[in-house]
Every structure is written in C-alpha cells, then in structure tokens.
C-alpha cells in the first residue's frame, strides 16, 4: 500500500512532465507506424503476386525483427548520431514485418471466385487491386498495423538509451536509481504510462476499424 501511495504522489506531483514524455512517445510511435505502414503496404502490394518476391521480402523483414533491439539501436548511432533519428529508423525496421506479412496474406486470401467475377466484369488488374483486393484485405492489414503498434510502443522505451524521446526516460532513471528514493516510482511510471498509451492506441484502432470497414467484413480481421 505504501508503495502505491508514494507512486500516486509521484505522478500527481508532476503531471506536466509525464504528459510531455507521453506525448513524445506517442509522436515517435505514430511517426514510425505511419511510415512503416505506408512502406509495408506498398512493398506488400508489389510482391504479393510473385512467390519469389514474397519470400525475399518476408525473409528480410523477418531477419530485421529478430535482431537484438539494443544492437539495432546502437548500429545507427555512427550514421545518425544520437536522438530522434536513430530511434525512428530502428523502430521503423522493427515495425515492418507484421504489416508486410498481413498485407501479403490479406491480398492473397481474397476468394478466387471474387477475383474471377471482377475480371469477368471487365475490371482491369489495377481496378481489381484498388476496388476489390485492398478493401477486402484491409481488416487484415489493419490488424497487422495494430499488432506492430503495440510492439513498437513497448520497444520504443529503449530509445532513451540512445538519447531518444519518450517514456523510456522514467525506466532508465528508475534503473540507475534503483534502491534510492523514488527509483521504483520512476520505473513504474514508465511502465504504467507505456501500457496506458498502448491501450489508447488499441482503442484508436478499434474505432478506425469501425469507421473504415463495412459491417459485412467486421466479424473477421481487426
């Protein structure tokens, strides 16, 4: 009880500061996700019909996601220095795989009968992609973006180690002051607000899904 009380006091004592770090964190994640989604969907569209292209793209993204995160962040310091840029680049590379994989799966999962009838009615392959395949794959793609976002929101805490922004600040501070006054409180502040931010993103995707998919597609996918 004592711990919780002092944590609450810690949080209530510095609302502006916590909000500031949370917003930083959110902006970093949002920027990473927007660009990763854009790139992954484009790459997914480009490779989804070719077996070879598909396996190359998925292997590359798969390798990226298995690199140890600490190392990936550090690798870019010589190139981009410290701060936002290397954090962004590292997180971007992490975010690709789930979206890319779901884009490819979603596009290839479209019922062949639907494609046959689309072609049979005289839709060009471009029209089929835009009017049929993408809308049908969208719930699956959105699920990929959502999974990726949750993952990135957590990993982004490490950005602090290379001078990046965000709630990682409290985790790092808490770690270095472990055993000292308010060390634990800092650590928990970082963890709790990252989780809250993740929940907020999740709620955002639920709403986005409602707004962007017709009711007939809503039972499956996102």
């Amino acid at each position, binding site marked *: 009880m004592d711990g919780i009380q002092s944590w609450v006091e810690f949080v209530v004592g510095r609302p502006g500061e916590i909000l500031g770090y949370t917003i930083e964190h959110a902006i970093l994640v949002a920027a990473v996700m927007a660009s990763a989604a854009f790139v992954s969907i484009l790459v997914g569209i480009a490779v989804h019909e070719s077996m070879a292209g598909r396996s190359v793209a998925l292997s590359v993204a798969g390798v990226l996601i298995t690199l140890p995160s600490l190392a990936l962040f550090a690798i870019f310091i010589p190139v981009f220095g410290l701060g936002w840029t290397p954090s962004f680049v590292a997180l971007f590379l992490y975010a690709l795989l789930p979206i890319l994989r779901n884009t490819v799966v979603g596009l290839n999962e479209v019922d062949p009968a*639907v*494609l*046959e*009838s689309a*072609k049979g009615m005289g839709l060009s392959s471009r029209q089929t992609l835009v009017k049929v395949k993408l809308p049908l794959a969208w719930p699956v793609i959105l699920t990929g973006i959502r999974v990726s976002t949750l993952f990135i929101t957590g990993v982004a805490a490490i950005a602090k180690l290379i001078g990046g922004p965000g709630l990682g600040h409290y985790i790092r501070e808490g770690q270095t002051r472990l055993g000292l006054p308010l060390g634990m409180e800092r650590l928990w502040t970082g963890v709790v607000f990252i989780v809250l931010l993740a929940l907020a993103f999740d709620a955002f995707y639920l709403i986005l899904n409602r707004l962007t998919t017709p009711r007939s597609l809503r039972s499956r996918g996102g």
Partner: protein
Amino acid sequence: MAEPDQTTEESGGGDAGGPDVVAAGAGTAHGSDEIMIELQEVTKRYPGSNEDAIESLTLQVPKGEILVLVGPSGCGKSTALRLINRMIEPTSGHIIFDGEDVTTVDADHLRRRIGYVIQQIGLFPHRTIADNIATVPRLSGWDKQRTDARVDELLETVGMDPSMYRDRYPNELSGGQAQRIGVARALGADPLVMLMDEPFGAIDPITRDRLQNEFLRLQQELRKTIVFVTHDIDEAIKMGDRIAILGERSRIAQFDTPERILAAPANDFVEDFIGSGATLQGLSLERVRDVQLNTDYPVVRHDVGVTEAQRVLETSSEDWLLVLDDDDRPARWVTLDHLDRTDKRLIENGRKVTALAEPEDTLRDALEEMLLSNAGATVAIDGRGKYHGVIELETLMNVLQRMRREAKAHYARHAEPDTDDTSVDA
C-alpha cells in the same frame, strides 16, 4: 417454345415450312440466322499440361438463343466459356464475337459487353447488393441517376424488393438470393450476351426449378444470346434452345434441339448421358394444346338421363363414361356398373373427375394425372375449364412415335447427325 421462322430473306428458298438449314446441319430453334458467337476449331491446352482441355471445338450460337453446353465433369465446359470472354486465350483457332475476332478487341471492354455468371457467384463481400449490381454500369461511365434506376429495375427483374435488399451485404442473403443477385449483376449494363456457368448449381431442387422458370420467363422478354453450362441433362433440356452434348476434351457428341436429342440420340454416349428418363423428358417438352386429343370418347351432359347414358356407354368400346356439368365442365366418371346399381342422378353417380390438364400443361403432367385417375385417362380442358377432349396412354404413344419419326426424317434430310462417334464412345 417453338416459334415460326421469321428470317424469310436468307432462308426463303429452301424447304418451305420446315426448319431451315444452318451450317452443321442443325435447324434453328428460334428466329434469327445471325450468328452472335462462333468458335472455329478452337483448341486450348493449359500451360504445363500435356493434354488438350478442349480439342478443335467448332460451334455457333445464333442471336437470341440459349445454347446449353452439357457434359461430364472436366470435359472443358468452363474452359469453353472462359475462352469466349477472354478470361483465357485459345492455343489455336478463332473466336468470333458479334462479327469480330475477340483477340483484336480490348479484353476489358469485351468483358463489359458480356454478362458472366460464375458457379461460385463471387459477389463482392465488401459491397452492398446495389453496389454489386452497379459494378459494370459504373465502369461504363453511367451517371448516378441512371445507375440507381437500373439497380432497382434489375432487383425487380429478379424478383427481389429493392427497398428491402438494396443496402444489404452479400453475407446477409440466402444461397438462392445470392444466385439471383449474381444474375442481376451480370445483366448490369444490359449486355447482349450472357455466359452462365452452372448458375443454379448450388441450390435445392425446388428453388432451382423456380429460378429456372423465372429465368426462362425473363428470357422471353430479353432475348439475350446465352451460353449456359451445366452437367445436369434435365436442366439442359429445360433451358436449351439447343444443346451441345460434350464428350472428353469437349468433342461434340451431339448438337441439336432438346426434342431431337431425346428422340434420336446420336450414339451410345449420348444415350447413356440422357439416361433412361429420356422418354419422360420428351413428354415434358410437349404441351397439351399441341396434341391430337381423343374426341370420340363417350361423353354426355348430366341432364340427358340414365337411359341415354347407358346407351352411349354400351355402344362405345370404353368402360368409363364422362359426365359434364351445366357449364360443360368435366364432373364425374361413371361405369355401367354404377348406372345399374343405383338410381342416383348422373351428376352424383360414379367418381369425381380429378385428372385434368390445361392447354399449357405438359404431357408429362398429363401422364402423371392419368396414372392417378380412376378411368386411366386425363381430361383436357380449355382455359375456362370446359371439356376439350381426352388424353389416354395411346395419345401419348402416338406423340412419342411422331417425335421419333420427325427426328429421323430430319436426320435423313441432313444426311448425318451432327456427331463425332469415333472419339467419344470410349
């Protein structure tokens, strides 16, 4: 079904009144001589396969007719359809659509002019029914008002209430409703030609029967040129103005009207394919109005008196006497036994007449009625229920004989049935 031949200019010289001669020896079932679709020695081998899916298929579809392609699974029926709208390209041969070789026109434009119904329906799950039906009109650049009006018109056409179904999604329809929307969507921009690949395949027999009837009624108005694929010979007989029975690799086993195929199967393959129900099927193609009724049957009005009734029956060779009511409608069947045993009035004596056939009924209906009736005969009535004549087993036998005779005469005139015996019997 059968209509008088209207194309006098081109076919005028030949055998007057009879079916005119078209290349390949088949008579026209419906008016036009104009060929809408023509396949010329078309062969298709899929990449990576070492056997032809279709081997040198030649056929013609006149404007406004339904041609049914029927044959065993895997014989290339779907392949033939998909060649026509260039979903796939032929390995060799030519496909002429409305006078043009299909390979010389833009494939997407060609497909917008051809309604295509696939067996799996393939409605767009993310689009409403209205949007699904509007697909081709929108692609063809129709404005919103015209498109909306067309959507409602088509929903009405396939018997679905626009206000109820317009905004639904495909997953909110039953299988039969989805099939109808598939047909409505294919009719979208009023194409001249429809390609239909087992469009009523996946539905229960009763609903299928209804959809078939609705479709035939629709076709009476629309007069589209239709290539219809099925593996069900009964459906082929019902839907086709002409039927191509296909064997392996789509070699034509027989190409003719349903009537002649049933009356004179070209070879064992066709006979096996039609099956033992062919005779009954033949009867279902003939209507009561077209047959020679037995009008010598013993018949009296109910008010002639019992003695007169006895006299009529005794002088005839039949066992049963038909009694008519005041309005000349068939009322009772009576035998001498009935007349002797009781002194009931004629209108109450004997058995009630149950087996009746109207002019539009088929002979098959008439036969079923007959088998259930007391007197072993079906009474033909006119539209207002008045007595017209009697159909007996003998009447039906005569019809069957006439059908066989006509088919034989037709083939005698055209030397050979349009067949390919060598390849398909195996």
